C-alpha cells in the first residue's frame, strides 16, 4: 500500500528577487512500512523535500499524497489533525518545548489528538520507559543531554502510534554513542510496529538501517536504491 506519493514536485524560493530552485521535478513513491533514508550534500533539498512531503511546507507545484489523500485538498484543521494522529516528527535540534517537562512533551500529541489526560499520562510514561528515560520524566529539556533530548523527541514522535515518522537529521546533534542509540531505537520500532520512516541524514550509520536510500543533488533525486549505498 502506498504511504506517500509525490508527483512532479517543485519548490522555488525567492530571495531578493532571485529564484532558488530547491526541488526540481521530484517524483517519489513510499510504501507503508518502508524505512527510507534521504541523503545528499548540504543544500541539495533533502529537508525541503521532507517538509513538502510531510505537509510542513507547501510545494510550489506538483502533488503530494499521503495514504492516497492529496495534502493540497486538506484544510488547516484536517492537516493538523492528520499530523496529530498519523504523523510523527523528529528534528535535528530536537525541538522540544522548553517550558514542558520530558513527560509533558511526550504526552502533548495525545492531548492534541483528544486522548484524556490520565490515559495520555500512562502512555507517555510507558513510552519514556521504552526509551529508558522514565527517571527523567519530570525534567525540563535543558536539564537533559542531547541524546536524552532526542530520545524524548523520538518518544514524542511515536507516542500517537503514527503511520509515518519523518526524521530530519535525527542524529545530527548527537555524539556517536547517542547516534547509535537513536539509530537502534528507530530500527527496532520500524520492525516492531511496521511504521513508515522517512529519514533525512548525513550519517552513513543511519542510512545503513534504511530499506531504501534516495540520493539527492541540486534539488533533484539523483538515484534511488533498495539497498544502502554508503
Amino acid at each position: 500500500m502506498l504511504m506517500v506519493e509525490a508527483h512532479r514536485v517543485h519548490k522555488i524560493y525567492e530571495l531578493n528577487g532571485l529564484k532558488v530552485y530547491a526541488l526540481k521535478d521530484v517524483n517519489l513513491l513510499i510504501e507503508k512500512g518502508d524505512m527510507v533514508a534521504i541523503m545528499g550534500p548540504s543544500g541539495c533539498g533533502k529537508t525541503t523535500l521532507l517538509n513538502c512531503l510531510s505537509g510542513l511546507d507547501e510545494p510550489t507545484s506538483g502533488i503530494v499524497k499521503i495514504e492516497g489523500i492529496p495534502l493540497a485538498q486538506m484544510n488547516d484543521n484536517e492537516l493538523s489533525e492528520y499530523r496529530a494522529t498519523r504523523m510523527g516528527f523528529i528534528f535535528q535540534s530536537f525541538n522540544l518545548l522548553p517550558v514542558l517537562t520530558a513527560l509533558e512533551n511526550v504526552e502533548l500529541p495525545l492531548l492534541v489528538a483528544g486522548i484524556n489526560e490520565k490515559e495520555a499520562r500512562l502512555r507517555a510514561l510507558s513510552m519514556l520507559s521504552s526509551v529508558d528515560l522514565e527517571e527523567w520524566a519530570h525534567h525540563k529539556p535543558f536539564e537533559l543531554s542531547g541524546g536524552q533530548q532526542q530520545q524524548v523527541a523520538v518518544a514524542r514522535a511515536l507516542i500517537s502510534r503514527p503511520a509515518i515518522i519523518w526524521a530530519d537529521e535525527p542524529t545530527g546533534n548527537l555524539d556517536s554513542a547517542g547516534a547509535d542509540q537513536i539509530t537502534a531505537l528507530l530500527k527496532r520500532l520500524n520492525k516492531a510496529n511496521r511504521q513508515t520512516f522517512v529519514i533525512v541524514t548525513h550519517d552513513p550509520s543511519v542510512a545503513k538501517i534504511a530499506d531504501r536510500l534516495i540520493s539527492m543533488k541540486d534539488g533533484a533525486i539523483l538515484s534511488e536504491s533498495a539497498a544502502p549505498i554508503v
Partner: protein
Amino acid sequence: MYLPMYLALLGCAVTVLLLFAALAVTNKSIFTMGVRNIIRRPKSAAIIVGALLVSTAIISGSLVASSSLGYSVVKATYDALGNVDETVALNGQPFNYSVYQHVAADSALTNNTDGISPSLYGGVPSVDDVTSGITSTGVTLVGLNFTLDAPFGDFVLLNGTHTNASDLTSSQVLINDKLAQDLDAHTGDRLVVYYGENASSVKAYTFSVKYIAQNEGKAQYELNENLFMQLSAAQAVFQHEGQINEIRVSNLGDVESGAAKSGNVSALLTQALSGSSQRFDVNPVKQDMLAAADASGAQFLNLLVALGTFSVITSAMLIVNVFVTLSEQRRSELGLARALGMKRRHVIFLFLFEGVTCALLAAAIGSILGIGIGAGLIDTLNAATTAGSPAGASLVLHYDLTDLLTAFLIGLLVAVATVAFASYRISRLNIVRALRNAENSEQAPRLPRGAPVLGVGLLVFGFIVYGVSPQSLAAQVMAPTLIIFGLALVALRAIKRQQVLTVAGAALVLYNAGMIFSTSGFNNFATAVSFTVSCLLLVLGAVLVVLVNATSLLKLFSKALTRLKASQALIRPSSAYCLQKRETLGTTVTILSLVIFLMIVALVTAAVYQPDISQQTGGYDIRATSSTPLSNLTTLEVQSPTSESPAKPVALLNASDIDFYDGLFVANATGTSINGQALYQQGSETNVYGIDANFSEHAQYGFKDTLADFNSSEVWNLVNNPHYVIVDSSYLYGPNGTQVSAGDTISFNAGNGTARFLVAGVLDEYYLHGIFMSKQQMQHYFPEVKGDTLFLIKSASGMKPIDLSYDLERGYKAAGLNAFLISDEVSQMMTQSQQFFQLTATYLGLGLIVGIASVGVVTVRSTIERRQEIGIMRAIGFSRGLVVKSLLFEATFATTLAAAVGLSAGLVVSYAIYTNLNQTVKVPFTIPIVQVILVLVIVYLAVAICTAIPARNVSRILPAEAIRYVE
C-alpha cells in the same frame, strides 16, 4: 515650580547630557552605530520616540493646564479689581462719608497709596432701556467720585478714547459694554433704574447714557453688568444721603505690583480705623484672590501629577518592553557584535546612545504636544465652569517657556533613566544562546549571597529614615516599605520564597491601604506624592502576592477552564509558559493592574458623586431671588413709580398656580469660623438664612446630625432660641477639613463683635449652603435685611414649574426677581462634578492607551520569542485556531489576575477617597457595576486583540518556516 527645584532639575539634566557627550566622544564607533540604527530603522525609531514622548507630553500637559488655571484666575482677579488692592467695608452696611475723609487724611496711607476713593454700590432690581424696550436684571450700580477715583484708571470707551467720567452730570451714567449689550443700549438712550428698600418703596430713576466703556479695567468691576454714576446720584437712588459702603484703596505701583504691598497698607488702614466705634473690615482683596489662584493652581497640578504618575510609569514599562523587543529582533546582530569583541558595556552604550538620542527628540516633541493635552484639559474644565474655575471665569490656555522647559527636563530624565535600565536589561540577555536560538533557562533567580546583608541594610536604613522625621509623609511611606523588604530579604534565608514574598506583598497592601485611608485630599505636593506612592505600592504589593502564588492560581484557573471543556492540549503548554516566563507574566499583570486600578478609581469616584436630586430639592420646585424684599408672592405690592418714569405693570400671578412657598431672609456674614477654627478651603464669607415656621414645616430636608435627644422637629424649633442655628452639610473647618457636626460652635462677625451659636443640627443637603436661624435673630444681627429675598416655591399640581418660573420673572420684573428650577440647578452642579470626573477619566485614559500599547508590545514580543515553538506545536498537530487559543489562554490568565488586583485595589482606594470626600457630600457608596464590567471587557478585548493578531499571523506561517526561524 520653586527655583531651587528647577535649578536642581536643570543641573541633573545638564550632568546627564555632559556624561552622555563624554561617553559618545570616548566611544565614537559605538555612538555612530547607535545613531545609525535610528536612520537604518526609522520605524523602530518612531516607536521608541512615540513611547518616550508619552511621559513628557503628560508632564507638559499637567504643567500647561495648571499654569492656565493659575493664570486665568489671576487674570480674572486683575480684571475684576483693576487697581483696587484693598477695600474697607462695614459688613455690607453703609457708613458715613467722614470715614473716608479720615482715612484719606492719614499721611502714612497717602504716602503708600496712589489712590483712595469712596464708593457706594449695590445691586438694583432692574434697569429698563426705554429706547430699546429691553429690561436687564441683576445690574450693579456703582456710585463714584470720579475725580477721586481717577488714580484707579480711566474708562476705555468703545471708540478707544479714554475718560475718567468726571464730567458726568447727576442725570448721566456710564455703562459697561456688558450691560450695553444686554440692553441693546447706545449712547443717548434713556435708562430707568428701579430701586426700593422693599417692594412698596420701589422708585424709578431716569438717566441718559453718556458713555459706553469697554469691558476692561474698572468698567468690568466684579465682572458684572455695571452702571456708573456720580456718588451723589447713587446716594439718592439708594437713599443713603452722605453715606458710602466701601472705600477703595490702590497701593503704589501698577495693577500687578501694588498687590505685593497689601500687607503694609492693610496694617496702616487697620491702624487708621482703630479709633472708630464701628468695626470695619479691611480686606486685602487682590492679595487674597491671588493667593487663592496660586493655591488652586498648585492643587490642580498636584492632582494632575498624582494621576499622571501612573501613566508615566506605564509608559516607562512600555519603553523597556519596546527596547527589549527591539533587542530580540536584533539578537543575531548583537551576537555577531559580541563575537567580534563587543563587551557587555558596549551593548549598553549602543542602546543608550540610540535611546538618549531618541529621548532628546521625544522630550522636545512631547513637551510641545503637552500644550495640546493642556488645551484639552482646559477645554474640559471650561465645560465644568464652576468646578474648574474658582473665580467663575472662563479659563484661557496659558503657558510659558519655563513650563515647556521643565517638562522637557523631567521627560528627558525619565526617558534617560528608563533607557538606561532597558539597555542594562538588554545587556543581560544571553546573546550567544539567543544567536543559536537556544532558549534561556528561566529558573527562579537564586538568592544572592549578600541578600541577608542587604536586608539588614534596608532595615537599618528604614529605621533611620523613620527616626529622622517620623511625622513626614515620605518617612511614613518609605520607611515601612524599606523595613518590609529588609525583613523579607533576611527571612528568605530560612523561610520559603513563596511564603516570605506573600507576607511581604500582603504587608505592603495592608500598610498602604491604611495610608490611603488616612490621606485627606491633595492639599500639598507632599500629600499628593505620598498618596500616589501609596497607591502604587498597594497595587505592586497585590501584584507580588498573586505572582508568587501564580502556580496555585493557575491550577484553579485551568481547572475552571477544564470544566468549560477546554482542551488540555491548549492548557498544558500555555500554563507552563505562564509559570516559566514569570517576567512576561509579571510585566503584563503589573501594567494591566495599574490600568484597571486607575479606571476603577475614576469610575467609582465619579459614580459616587451622582447624588439623589430629591434629597437636595427639599420638596421645592423653584428657587427665586429678588433684589427687593417682597412680603408675599401672590399679590404684588409694587406701586407705580413716583417719578416721571412709565408705570410698572402690577404682577398678576394666579395664586392657585402655587401650592405653597416660603420666603427666607438672606444675608452675607464674614469672619465665619467653627470651634474657633477657620473654614476649610471655603473662605470666611457665608450665607445666613432667616427662616420661619412655614419653612421648617414645608422643607423636606432630613438631618445628617442633630444634638443628642432631639428629633427633627425639635431641632427646627431650636432655631427660635437665640443660641442655636442649623447648618447645611458642606461646612468643613480646621487644617484637615473636619466636617461640622451638631454641638459645634459656629461664629461670624456681627456689628462690633462676634456672634456665636451652637449648631443644633446639620442638614442632609448642600444645595442651600449657609447658616439657618430665625428671622428675628437675622434682624438682630443683620438690621439691613428688610424682608424676604429668597423664595422656595412648590408649584401647584397641573402647573409646570418652568411655566411658573417664567410667570414669576415676568410678574416681578420690577422687583428684579429671577427664578430657577431647583432640579436643573442641582443637575447642573452634578454635571459639573461629573465633567470634572470626566476630566480625570480622560487623563487616566492616557494611561489606558499607553497600558494597552505596552501590553501589545509584550504580546508581540512574546509571540516573536515563541515563533519557533509555535512551529513545533504546529508540527505535532496544533491547528492555527488552537495556537491562537493557546496564546489567548495566557492573556486571559494575566488579565484575570490583573482584573482581580486592579478591581480590588481600585475599590479600596475609591472607598478611601469616598470616606475622605464624603465629609463634604453625604452620598451612598455605589459601584457602577455595568461600567466596571464594561471596562474589564474593554481591557480584555484590547488584550485579546493585541494577542490574537500576532498569534494568528505567526500561526499562519508554515511550520517548516517557523521551525527554522532565525532572525
